[in-house]
């Protein structure tokens, strides 16, 4: 026996020695070779490095957006629950927070993968960015550490601390998370609009490099977009749980969760175009040619795809609201308006998605007298599109308003006047928006661009003013019935999934254009992309990469949903108690019968 063991040990040692020798021999040329300077790029076999980094970066961004957004509305919901004493809000906030811990791990893992990928595949670029931003890394890591502490304290401390302490933890989680995002945004916005460096790329001011032209617009844009995205994913979770729910109580809870997530997503979506407008202005302010590349050059057709996506978001959001009205007693009286709302939304969608120049064959181009269609050309310009998107926002707001008052009858003495004033505000704003849209055709470009602001502000005014009036109008209103949560068709849940997928796709597309507008520059005007991937790909290829990324993201999200759902499952022992008892009894009976046979 000893001999056998010794033989085995010797054989293992020999195998190990041979393997080590083989490794040394294989590595020998590399070890013996003189030390070469670091390459600017390294390539992966079979697949482009850029595509790999693109997918990893986008997945990281999607998870980061979710992880940053959920604590925001979880905190708000918890606060509402605390102030009103309504436990449902507290439970809902907890349900959202359950998704956080797994998502946080995914975000961190993808972030590490992104960093390692950059170091390995883009060493020169990484070295330059490290040189510029080295002093921001320590605070970033420290904040990340604090975020982990606050996040887990917030999640595991649910119900374990006093409500105020717990709310404070949530607040700190949000502050730290936002600060992390701001630092990371400095790195990526610097690549688009570098500041604080001289023409040779040497750092002259770290603060200027951080506070570059689009840093703050991106910060704000991402804060709002994260809310929209997080809300949509939260709503999708509600929809997923709703479809698998077995009791009416569960259905009611997850229906409410889906509705709340969607409400948050749409509320955040409405001001997003305005933040985007600010971002665009800053890009133009930094470099007009960069702005024109984005909006009027290579990427102008990308915004037609964006229009299709946002149009679908509005359509799906309205569709969900209309379906949601089926759970409200008294909503029947508003159903007749739906066809008109749908008509307006469809019309606005068509106008928004109309391209300025058409893809046409030579014969068609000759027949049209150019690439611009004689009629559709009129709808493909800024005046028409701005008007369409403003009316789209206003129409969605009307859908929400109808939903809000579906089961209520105003009892205040001035109800009729209030309704008339609300109608008057809508009418005046619609006329004003359309007038400015038409007027835009008769003025120069500079004036036309300036008209978008009064259009936006008038729509915002209408929404705020009508909401304020509505709040007073329906104070102490008579209810026609309660909202019957859980009574909603399954297709409404698919509308929520559709919204979540569309949001993710939109995020992927806009992520692409933000990076893509630099074209053949890693850092615009400072570090040129000299890799084999320096070209700007076709929009079809970009669409394929975005689609693959979105599918991978939802696969990961499915894992998050599954793992998050485990906490509400019964323990294994409890779940299988009956089965195990039956199994034991069956085994006992079998054993007894064997014994009796043997005995006989």
């Amino acid at each position, binding site marked *: 026996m000893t001999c056998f063991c010794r033989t085995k040990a010797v054989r293992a040692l020999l195998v190990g020695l041979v393997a080590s020798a083989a490794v040394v021999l294989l590595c020998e040329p590399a070890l013996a070779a003189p030390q070469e300077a670091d390459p600017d790029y390294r390539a992966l076999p079979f697949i482009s490095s850029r595509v790999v980094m693109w997918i990893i970066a986008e997945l990281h961004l999607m998870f980061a957006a979710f992880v940053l957004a959920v604590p925001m509305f979880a905190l708000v919901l918890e606060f509402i629950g605390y102030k009103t004493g309504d436990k449902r809000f507290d439970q809902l906030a907890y349900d959202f927070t359950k998704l956080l811990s797994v998502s946080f791990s995914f975000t961190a893992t993808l972030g590490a993968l992104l960093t390692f990928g950059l170091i390995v595949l883009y060493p020169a670029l990484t070295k330059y960015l490290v040189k510029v931003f080295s002093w921001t890394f320590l605070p970033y890591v420290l904040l990340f550490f604090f975020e982990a502490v606050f996040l887990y304290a917030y999640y595991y401390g649910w119900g374990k601390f006093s409500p105020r302490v717990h709310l404070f933890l949530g607040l700190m989680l949000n502050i730290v998370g936002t600060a992390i995002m701001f630092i990371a945004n400095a790195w990526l916005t610097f690549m688009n609009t570098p500041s604080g460096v001289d023409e040779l790329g040497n750092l002259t001011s770290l603060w200027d490099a951080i506070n570059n032209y689009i840093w703050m617009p991106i910060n704000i844009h991402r804060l709002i977009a994260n809310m929209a995205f997080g809300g949509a994913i939260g709503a999708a979770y509600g929809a997923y749980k709703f*479809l698998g729910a077995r009791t009416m109580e569960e259905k009611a809870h997850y229906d409410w969760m889906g509705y709340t997530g969607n409400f948050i997503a749409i509320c955040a979506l409405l001001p997003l175009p305005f933040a985007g407008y600010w971002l665009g202005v800053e890009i133009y302010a930094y470099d007009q040619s960069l702005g024109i590349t984005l909006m009027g050059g290579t990427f102008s057709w990308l915004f037609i*795809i964006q229009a299709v996506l946002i149009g679908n978001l509005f359509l799906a959001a309205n569709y969900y609201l209309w379906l949601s009205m089926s759970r409200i007693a008294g909503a029947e009286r508003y159903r007749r308006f739906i066809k008109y709302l749908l008509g307006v939304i469809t019309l606005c969608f068509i106008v928004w998605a109309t391209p300025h120049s058409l893809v046409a064959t030579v014969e068609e181009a000759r027949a049209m007298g150019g690439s611009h269609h004689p009629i559709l050309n009129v709808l493909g310009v800024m005046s028409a599109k701005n008007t369409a998107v403003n009316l789209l926002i206003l129409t969605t707001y009307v859908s929400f308003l109808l939903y809000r008052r579906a089961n209520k009858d105003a009892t205040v003495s001035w109800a009729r006047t209030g309704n008339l004033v609300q109608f008057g505000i809508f009418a005046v704003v619609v006329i004003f928006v359309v007038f400015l849209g038409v007027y835009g055709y008769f003025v120069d470009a500079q004036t036309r661009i300036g008209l978008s602001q009064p259009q936006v502000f008038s729509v915002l005014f209408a929404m705020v003013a009508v909401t304020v009036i509505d709040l007073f109008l329906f104070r102490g209103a008579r209810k026609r019935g309660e909202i019957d949560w859980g009574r909603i068709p399954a297709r409404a849940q698919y509308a929520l999934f559709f919204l979540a997928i569309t949001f993710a796709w939109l995020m992927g597309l806009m992520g692409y254009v933000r990076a893509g507008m630099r074209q053949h520059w890693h850092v615009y*005007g400072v570090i040129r992309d000299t890799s084999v991937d320096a070209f700007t790909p*076709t*929009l079809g290829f970009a*669409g394929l990469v*975005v689609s693959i990324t979105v599918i991978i993201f939802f696969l990961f999200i*499915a894992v998050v949903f599954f793992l998050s759902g485990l906490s509400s499952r019964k323990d294994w022992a409890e779940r299988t108690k009956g089965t195990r008892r039956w199994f034991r009894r069956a085994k006992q009976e079998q054993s007894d019968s064997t014994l009796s046979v043997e005995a006989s």
Partner: protein
Amino acid sequence: MKHALYIFGFTILVSAFYWYVSLWVPQKRTEPPEDIAISADLSTAEMVAIGEEIVAGKGTCLTCHTMGESGAALRFPDLGNIGAIAATRVEGQGDVTYLAESMYDPNAYVLPGFVAGMPAVARPPVALTDDEILTVIAYLQSLGGTPTVTMATELEWQGQSIGAADAAPVAVGGNRDAETLFTSYLCNTCHNLDGTPGAGPSLEGLGTRLTKAEIYESILDPDATITEGFAPGVMGTMLTATGFREQVSAQELQSLVDYLAGL
């Protein structure tokens, strides 16, 4: 589990739909601009040709300027007739100085009605070299005027360029894009440029025989006029077979016609 599978299928379906949408729009892959090697003894005609190429390519001028009718946007002044009017823009400033200042220090003088914002083209990200700027001036002068600038012309701003040393030399000459089109659409399989007839007539000296409009017509409707000795219908069949009509853009067609008119 059943719902999870449905949802996953739905996710794939929606993502595939959006990919399909992204395939509807024009598909254009944009290559990084190529650097151009410029020798010190270029003739005026060569300078104009290179300048034209830089304006449309590396200089990214057409992103903001229109060039008569061929530009894409109108954010900055039209350059279609700039050679004729450059000398009149700023009192006491000759056309070469005005055009040079407009590129090296574009916001020193901004034409009334326009806003400042053009980047200095000798600086990154455009980063044209001094020699490249001279060729661009020659081209701009040729637009309605006569080029007077040479490669020996000295400008007070010279020596400020960034990145000139990084320029990778690439051979240049003529309208390279159109030449590429000529071969990529397989025109060269039937048409020779050296005077010898192929399956189709030789295109040597085409510009002296046909106007641009006639060249345009002979591409779009090849059977409208048939050169003696050649069969009708052949070129039409070839154009269909190569997918020329579906693929060629208006800009490419114009570029191709310009190229053929110059033969």
